[in-house]
């Protein structure tokens, strides 16, 4: 497990200079996008996979992060650090409010109510005509002081943030908190009978996932230099969910592998046919049927 990881990391670190030497800048962009989506999908995997909370509204935090960046830039805030802090804080706050209500429900009601909240956020944001309405909002890249946010800088920034977030998630999942979170997923009434305040554990995980998704949203706004309403739409929530399912629900690398696989498959199929979504659907179907633990479960048999 260590060696492949180190190799991938070395490859990612070495890629930009190689790419620019060989004229493969396009792939550097694709990798940036994959790393950002991997962060968002991994945050969803924390609550969906490890917490058993099937949130169908994760786009709300992702999109809010992107819009926060775009709106702050428009309003004259140009410091990247300030933008990040505000975006992450707002996403966490939104997750706290939505989670506090939704976590009083279970099962299909939870799915529907998270979706409903996300759609409310979508229509709310779209209704602000001064912030682009349905057209979205341009978001120039902010200043970070220490460095200029070129395409390559953004690539490395995304890599650093993803690596940091994954490290944090790894510690979290294997610490006391993570073990309890998974125990609640396994058997909620038993966890409660042991004396665990189930609601607090779930809510905290929900907020953390929202904050990380918000951070991914900011990076996405930097990447596309644009905040699109699509980032807030339910299709985006579904897209992130598909990544987690494809990569492996509750598997540590599930979010990363799913984001990479889905992005690459879409890229390839889009070149081949306009009916690319059919292909994506078939591949997802095959994974669900033949690899119920997702791509991550293929080489790791243990749960």
């Amino acid at each position, binding site marked *: 497990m260590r060696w492949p990881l180190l190799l991938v990391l070395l490859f990612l670190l070495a890629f930009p200079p190689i790419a620019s030497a060989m004229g493969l800048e396009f792939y550097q962009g694709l990798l940036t996008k994959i790393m950002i989506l991997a962060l968002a999908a991994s945050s969803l995997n924390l609550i969906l996979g490890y917490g058993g909370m099937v949130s169908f509204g994760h786009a709300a935090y992702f999109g809010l992060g992107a819009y926060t960046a775009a709106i702050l830039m428009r309003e004259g805030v140009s410091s990247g650090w300030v933008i990040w802090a505000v975006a992450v804080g707002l996403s966490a706050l939104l997750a706290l409010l939505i989670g506090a209500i939704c976590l009083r429900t279970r099962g299909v009601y939870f799915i529907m109510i998270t979706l409903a909240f996300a759609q409310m956020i979508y229509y709310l944001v779209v209704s602000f005509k001064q912030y682009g309405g349905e057209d979205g909002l341009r978001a120039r890249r902010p200043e970070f002081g220490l460095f200029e946010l070129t395409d390559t800088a953004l690539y490395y920034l995304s890599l650093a943030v993803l690596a940091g977030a994954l490290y944090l998630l790894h510690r979290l999942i294997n610490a006391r908190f993570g073990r309890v979170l998974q125990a609640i997923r396994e058997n909620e009434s038993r966890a409660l009978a042991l004396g665990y305040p189930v609601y607090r*554990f779930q809510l905290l995980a929900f907020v953390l996932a929202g904050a990380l998704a918000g951070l991914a949203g900011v990076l996405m706004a930097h990447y596309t230099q644009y905040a699109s309403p699509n980032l807030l739409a339910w299709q985006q929530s579904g897209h992130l969910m598909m990544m987690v399912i494809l990569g492996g629900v509750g598997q540590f690398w599930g979010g990363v592998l799913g984001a990479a696989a889905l992005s690459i498959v879409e890229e390839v199929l889009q070149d081949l046919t306009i009916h690319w979504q059919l292909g994506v659907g078939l591949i997802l179907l095959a994974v669900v049927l033949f690899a119920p633990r997702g791509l991550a479960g293929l080489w790791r048999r243990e*749960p």
Partner: protein
Amino acid sequence: MTLLETHQLSKRFGGLLAVNGCNLAVKTGEIHALIGPNGAGKTTLLNLITGVLAPNKGQVRFEGQDITHLPAHARVHRGLARTFQITNLFRNYTVRVNLELAVQARRGSSFRFWQPVFKEKALTEEAFRVAERVGLGGRFEVVAGQLSHGEQRALEVALALASRPKLLLLDEPMAGMGPEESARMVELIESLRQEFTILLVEHDMDAVFRLAQRISVLVYGQVIATGTPEEIRANPEVHKAYLGDEGGVA
């Protein structure tokens, strides 16, 4: 001294009064059995005591304090632990992890985000002691779902023991057991007598009359009699309401 007391406790499900003005008192140090025909409201009463359900009326007092509105998880920390009538374990986890989770719930905060839990030797050691106590020391690394029924019931008790309760609520611990497994469970409960106060809900009358110092009889959500096994056996009302058909119980 009275450890647990319910006062005029009532729970209504729609048109059904499952628990109806129930007064029950459990004294410190005793094994108190709660018996009653199917549908008498025994499990509902247990759920009210542990806080899984909220009553429509009445009070639950524990160590003299009103805990009627305390959430379920907080009651565990006060010293109320339960087992379930239908085995309720982390089936995909080993005996070890099941018990470590139970020990962890009691020892220190679980809002810890950084230190790997597998390095906490103290959790494992205490979990192992509890496992040995119920006879599962040799099955420590076995996945709970693969244990025999009797072993699963023992683990169920062990999970409650790990929280070091002042009052242990056992909801039909012999449910679904053969005679041999039942005998082992009786032995286990007997061995807990010195340390714990126990409220035992059970259908197995042999076990009840062997273990309990006092028995309360619940019928239609009300305690119609409380007394020693001899008193309960001699009580004509109990015979009429519950023991009647079985004639000479025990």
